[in-house]
């Protein structure tokens, strides 16, 4: 599958990869590290149109979704968004997604590309008759504009007076940029300030217009490679790598997304009763090797877990990652990671977050 921006990526010199059936840019000619650093210091434009997008409408849309997610959408006002896992009855994570609430009868849901069909089937199964769900992935394009200069860029792109100071994280507005109707939400997957833009998928000119908007600002395209290193530094989970159907939110650093105080939701009973034996922690490799998903984690020569994500951190210039370890492992303890048959020492950290913006 191709997003509406496929030809633009090729014209920008992208090295493409197949990501769950989508032809996506891994990086452009400047490379992952430059794209990563440009996002931290300036602003980058990402095509994330491969993510699945559903519209849920109906008089009991709110109740249906509140039963599906572990987080609590009763806290949302109109035009607010929320991150949440959805779980099976046994607590295993089906997917993690963002729910945008227009009002209690209309929602937009953004899900992982890899889980689009599975999620749609699951949600349909749990919808009540008065609510409908539509897969609008192909109708709506999705770009992420991420970095400290993202706000000033978007304010320039707006034809009407747009002051984004009032747009708080996880809030969105319906406005227009370059005269094109657009939903702007203050969300992202980079640990940086930034926005995600939803608009009609025929309006691909928005890409070029954003890139060319301000010659003084180094706004550059960035690919999925930088998106991965950015989210890792920010301590954010990736479905399929860190979390999956065999993981519950309580084993991942997602306890905050499970609201036991709300009424029944799917997975509540299993999660209340779950005994936690393992957890995902951050680590820093003390030698110059990069750990990868699946590498064994050892302590005192005994296998205790595995790496869920690993990369080289362009900001910290260190080899970092997340791994599963038993709950008894504490921060600052030493573990060893088996990379290609050799053991490398790593330090367990108190959090999965390696980077926090100022």
């Amino acid at each position, binding site marked *: 599958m191709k997003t509406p921006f496929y030809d633009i990526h090729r014209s920008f010199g992208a090295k493409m990869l197949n990501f769950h059936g989508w*032809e996506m840019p891994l990086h452009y000619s400047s*490379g992952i590290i430059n794209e990563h650093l440009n996002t931290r210091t300036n602003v980058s434009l990402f095509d994330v149109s491969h993510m699945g997008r559903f519209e849920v409408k109906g008089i009991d849309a709110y109740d249906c979704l509140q039963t599906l997610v572990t987080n609590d959408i009763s806290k949302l006002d109109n035009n607010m968004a929320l991150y949440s896992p959805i779980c099976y009855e046994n607590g295993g994570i089906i997917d993690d997604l963002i729910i945008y609430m227009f009002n209690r009868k209309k929602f937009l849901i953004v899900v992982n590309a890899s889980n689009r069909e599975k999620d749609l089937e699951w949600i349909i199964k749990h919808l009540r008759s008065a609510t409908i769900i539509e897969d609008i992935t192909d109708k709506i394009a999705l770009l992420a504009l991420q970095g400290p200069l993202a706000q000033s860029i978007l304010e320039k792109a707006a034809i009407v007076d747009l002051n984004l100071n009032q747009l708080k994280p996880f809030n969105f507005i319906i406005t227009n940029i370059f005269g094109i109707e657009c939903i702007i939400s203050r969300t992202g997957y980079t640990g940086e300030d930034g926005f995600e833009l939803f608009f009609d998928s025929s309006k691909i000119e928005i890409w070029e217009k954003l890139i060319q908007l301000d010659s003084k600002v180094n706004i550059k395209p960035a690919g999925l490679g930088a998106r991965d290193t950015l989210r890792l530094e920010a301590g954010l989970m990736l479905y399929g790598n860190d979390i999956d159907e065999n993981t519950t939110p309580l084993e991942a650093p997602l306890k905050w997304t499970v609201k036991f105080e709300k009424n029944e939701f799917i997975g509540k009973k299993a999660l209340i009763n779950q005994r936690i034996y393992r957890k995902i922690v951050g680590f820093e490799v003390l030698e*110059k*090797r*990069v750990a*990868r998903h699946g590498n064994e984690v050892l302590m005192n020569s005994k296998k205790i877990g595995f790496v869920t994500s690993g*990369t080289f951190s362009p900001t910290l210039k260190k080899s970092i990652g997340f791994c599963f370890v038993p709950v008894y492992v504490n921060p600052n303890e030493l573990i060893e990671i088996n990379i290609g048959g050799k053991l490398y020492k790593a330090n367990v950290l108190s959090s999965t977050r390696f980077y926090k913006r100022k």
Partner: protein
Amino acid sequence: MNENIRFTKEHEWIVIKEGIAVIGISDFAQSQLGDIVSIELPKVGSIFRRMQTMAIIDSVKASSDIYCVMSGEIVEVNEELLEHPEWINQSPYELGWIVKLKPSNMEEFHNLMTNEQYNKFIGETEENREKDQSGG
């Protein structure tokens, strides 16, 4: 390009200078790996047989083994790469050389690909890759 350069199918290059083989990875290889962030080098004095792993390169996205192209003894390693692994991206045939080796069997050199043969080989590799991608 030095006309005496030779390549392997695994994308290492070799030049013989005064009986010593200088080894690195090709420009095509570095472009496929993307940003290189670390390298593990062999010790001077170690002896390898042809096609044994002698070094490991980590890029942001992947790790790859670097094979010993010819049997022999490592006489020098490019220790500057420990501080500047990005030189392999920026200058794969000069600053980015990886090891120097004293070959024990010069015959092995003549089985390697010339620059022309190698370019044809990576052209075919790319074509196959394109085909694979359009099929997926």
